[in-house]
């Protein structure tokens, strides 16, 4: 159930109030960026996906009925656009994880090198998961959404989400171990 003030903003935005939509965007834009980044793993692409998603959400706002929370609905748009972006990128060139693509997450200098190394492997392993498993892992563990929210975004049952989480994390661990062994 979304907050009453958010519902009010949604109604005003649906009636064409641009300021109301701007306030809605301000509330959700960081989550939108993090979800997009979780999928595309590149700042420029994440920014493009976020911008596209926010414009498309505005255009589709009249169709939003409030069955799901606005944030969930928006996450679904972001996820679909992110997956489209990945497909488009993959068709042009094999997507490689470069350390330069990984932003500085505020890690202290001492641990920076090791953390970057681990994060690079983790992101690569994550990228190699099948789409659905990658989606549930990103939404649940990178973005921190609840299993219920993930199931609403993916429009499947919570049990299905948990099964994909289990399988995805298992594959992730195996792949990560391989990458670390190769690097060693």
């Amino acid at each position, binding site marked *: 159930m979304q907050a009453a003030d958010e519902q009010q903003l949604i109604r005003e935005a649906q009636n064409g109030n641009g300021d109301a939509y*701007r306030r809605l965007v301000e509330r959700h*834009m960081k989550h939108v*960026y*993090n979800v997009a980044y979780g999928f595309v793993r590149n700042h420029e692409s994440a920014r493009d996906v976020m911008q596209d998603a926010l414009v498309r959400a*505005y255009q589709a706002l009249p169709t939003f009925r409030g069955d799901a929370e606005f944030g969930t609905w928006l996450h679904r748009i972001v996820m679909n656009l992110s997956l489209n972006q990945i497909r488009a990128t993959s068709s042009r060139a094999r997507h490689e994880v470069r350390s330069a693509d990984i932003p*500085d*997450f505020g890690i202290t200098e001492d641990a920076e090198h090791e953390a970057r190394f681990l994060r690079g492997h983790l992101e690569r392993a994550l990228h190699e998961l099948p789409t659905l498993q990658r989606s549930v892992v990103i939404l649940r563990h990178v973005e921190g959404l609840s299993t219920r929210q993930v199931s609403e975004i993916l429009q499947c049952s919570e049990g299905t989400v948990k099964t994909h989480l289990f399988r995805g*994390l*298992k594959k992730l661990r195996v792949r*990560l171990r391989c990458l670390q062994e190769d690097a060693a």
Partner: protein
Amino acid sequence: MNSHTAMQLKLYEFLCDELPEDERAAVADHLAGCAACRDECDGLREAMQLFPADDARPSDSLPQAFWTGILNEVDQQTRPKHPGRSRRQRVADWLTMAVVPHRRLVLGLASLGIVAVSAFVTWSHLRQTPEAPLVTESVQPVTGDAVT
């Protein structure tokens, strides 16, 4: 699906502490006696810990100017596509802006205008109405023939 596979599918919920009490106890019992499932459980826990809850988010490292830029871009792309306000709405907006701050002055001027227009209309009407002509009836002399 064998009992190990069925049990392992519950490990995620077990580690998230999302299982009902009876199922949680069943999984714990199974893990106590099954080394393979215990390894799976340890591996899954390890994988889940790759994403610590308090990990910094990618958005944390971006400056405020980035978010302001995105907001402005979205504004630019959404506002022109929205149907603009009609001429009537724009006139109403302008009137509201012009009238509301000087309400008394505007009402006074409007009253004066109404009085002036009324006076002018009345005056015009009176001026254009022709005066009633004087009735000058010619009196015919009464002749004797008329009297019988």
